[in-house]
């Protein structure tokens, strides 16, 4: 965008022009350093996370190691990546990160199962079916969902989703279904008996995986619907009209023309929503809890990586303790996970932009 419209020096023979040019160069440098700050932020995130995470694994920060500190293996990578118990602050500490990575993945996948179908359906409805008036009213309201602070979703989880929704599912759906299974369990006792017992035993405490899935799924719906709808709107009407001319119904146009044509934009919205779910903190912490369980039971309490970070900060862990160092090991892992999602998103977006120009 740079324009070369400035008059060359010496045209007017005025000495003050030189001063003007000098001032312009200085201003340019100021603006460039502003832009550099954003790059430095990324570099600082990398360096700080690596530097502090090193003290978790090697007993000293990278900067201290370079200065000549002794290297001692405090936590091995083997234990970190394959251990199945996570309790760095426990009196008998365990450093297996799997349970909290699983917690994050469970919430992310679950939230994706909520927000991806609902968000895509909403986008199709807004783009292909809704009248303009409906669309103009519905879209901003849905975007409010993305504007509400996540702490409010956390409160919503504690005061409504967990006791009413998840509790209701457990006591009105799962438990009666278990009782019914029990009554017919003579048909196949070895399969149905344990299933019935399990279903009748389910109840919900203060936290549950399912509550986390519901709130995170809800808050990521607008990311999917909004960006997918933009992608669908970008599909040229010629394609739709061509299909109609061949006798296609609206359903066929929506599912076989619009969806495939907008697919890379739609996938980009999925990646964005999942990446947001990975990094989501407050709602997940208040909904899913603080117990690093390696469980697939949606009614159990689990702990995500972000919830671990919050729980440690609550304890005002002092610098140099293993709890403090573990913050950065987990933070680094979290950052790398979202970074790779963002890179994939970037790739998809670039492809999408090139399609219908």
């Amino acid at each position, binding site marked *: 965008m740079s324009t070369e419209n400035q*008059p060359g020096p010496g045209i007017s023979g005025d000495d003050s022009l030189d001063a003007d040019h000098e001032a312009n160069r200085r201003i*340019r440098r100021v*603006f460039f350093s502003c832009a550099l700050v954003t790059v430095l932020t990324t570099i600082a995130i990398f360096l700080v996370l690596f530097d502090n995470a090193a003290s978790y694994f090697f007993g000293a920060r990278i900067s201290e190691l370079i200065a000549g500190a002794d290297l001692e293996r405090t936590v091995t990578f083997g234990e970190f990546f394959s251990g199945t118990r996570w309790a760095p602050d426990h009196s008998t500490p365990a450093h297996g990160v799997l349970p909290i990575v699983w917690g994050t993945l469970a919430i992310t996948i679950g939230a994706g199962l909520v927000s991806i179908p609902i968000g895509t359906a*909403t986008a199709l409805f807004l783009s292909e*079916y809704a009248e303009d008036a409906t669309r103009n009213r519905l879209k901003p*309201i*849905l975007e409010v969902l993305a504007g509400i602070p996540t702490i409010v979703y956390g409160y919503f989880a504690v005061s409504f989703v967990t006791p009413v929704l998840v509790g209701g599912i457990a006591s009105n759906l799962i438990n009666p279904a278990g009782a019914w299974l029990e009554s017919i369990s003579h048909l196949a006792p070895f399969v149905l008996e344990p299933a019935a017992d399990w279903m009748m035993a389910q109840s919900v405490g203060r936290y549950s995986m399912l509550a986390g899935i519901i709130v995170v799924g809800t808050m990521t719906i607008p990311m999917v619907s909004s960006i997918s709808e933009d992608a669908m709107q970008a599909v040229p009407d010629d394609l739709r009209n061509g299909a109609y001319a061949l006798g296609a119904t609206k359903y066929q146009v929506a599912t076989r023309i619009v969806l495939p044509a907008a697919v890379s934009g739609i996938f980009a919205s999925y990646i964005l929503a999942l990446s947001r779910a990975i990094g989501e903190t407050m709602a997940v912490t208040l909904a899913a809890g603080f117990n690093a369980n390696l469980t697939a039971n949606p009614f159990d309490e689990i702990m995500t990586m972000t919830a671990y970070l919050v729980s440690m900060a609550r304890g005002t862990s002092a610098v140099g303790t293993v709890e403090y160092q573990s913050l950065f090991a987990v933070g680094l892992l979290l950052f790398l996970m979202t*970074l790779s999602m963002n890179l994939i998103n970037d790739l998809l977006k670039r492809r999408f932009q090139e399609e219908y120009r």
Partner: protein
Amino acid sequence: MSTKREELFADVDLSQEKLLNRLFHGLLAAASLFGLVMLALLLLDVLWESSQALLTFDIDIGQFLTGTSSSRAEQAGFGASILASIWLMVLTAVLAFFIAVGCAIYLVEYAPRNRVTRLIEANLANLAGVPSIVYGLLVLALIVNDAGLGSVILAGAIALALLIVPIIIVASIESIRAVPSSVRDGSYAMGATKWQTIRKVVLPQAMPGILTGTILALARAIGETAPLIMVGTLLHATRYPMGPLSDFSAMPTQIYNWTYQADRMFNGLAALGIVVLLVALIALYVLAGYLRRRYETEGGTISNV
């Protein structure tokens, strides 16, 4: 005509197609309603819980809005947290605004098309996707502990500023680009230098859009909880913050601590706190909407996503 057509297609049975289409339409409409229903439930839940808190516990609203928090629910107020949030927003706005606008001006007006520029732009997209809690970790290590600033408002503001800089940059780039190049050329033709053109022609035209973007970014920052928790906040904001270097608990972190407590009254206070937070949010959105309408020029629309 129609009779002839009916004769022609008499053997074509479309009832199944029609049913399928109607079912699909209904399914999509129902899915769209899900988001609306959840939003309504959320708002009703907060309003219900806060009205219950007002009815059940003897809460003086004036005392709640001005007082400091306490480990005893009966004496807990929200005033110190509101004040801390105001401090945070002012500092965050000052820190983020100049860096973001400077970066946007560089990218639109100065940056040559080269690898460094592409790197800066790609990096912006990446920064916008970094989880907010990671900014908190960065500030915790670098500012709070290594630089020895401690868990103070300024540290929280730095974390929030880093978080919203990419948002303001994107909005600023859009509104600077929306200034027509004919206006710039006119300024150059009058003999103005590049900096004079930017300062006296481009920025005044782009400023409403930039301000709208900044306010929307602040609306994002005011509800951010995780970075502040990582930086370190008081469990209860028992003191009024006196400046950028006091320890604090802002509105969202105080709400978190109240929600986390087992005490029912604290949970009720959290609901009231959320009402205050949402009112502040709505005020920011209204202000942004007013600015946008007041200065709306063709092509100068700003999206907040």
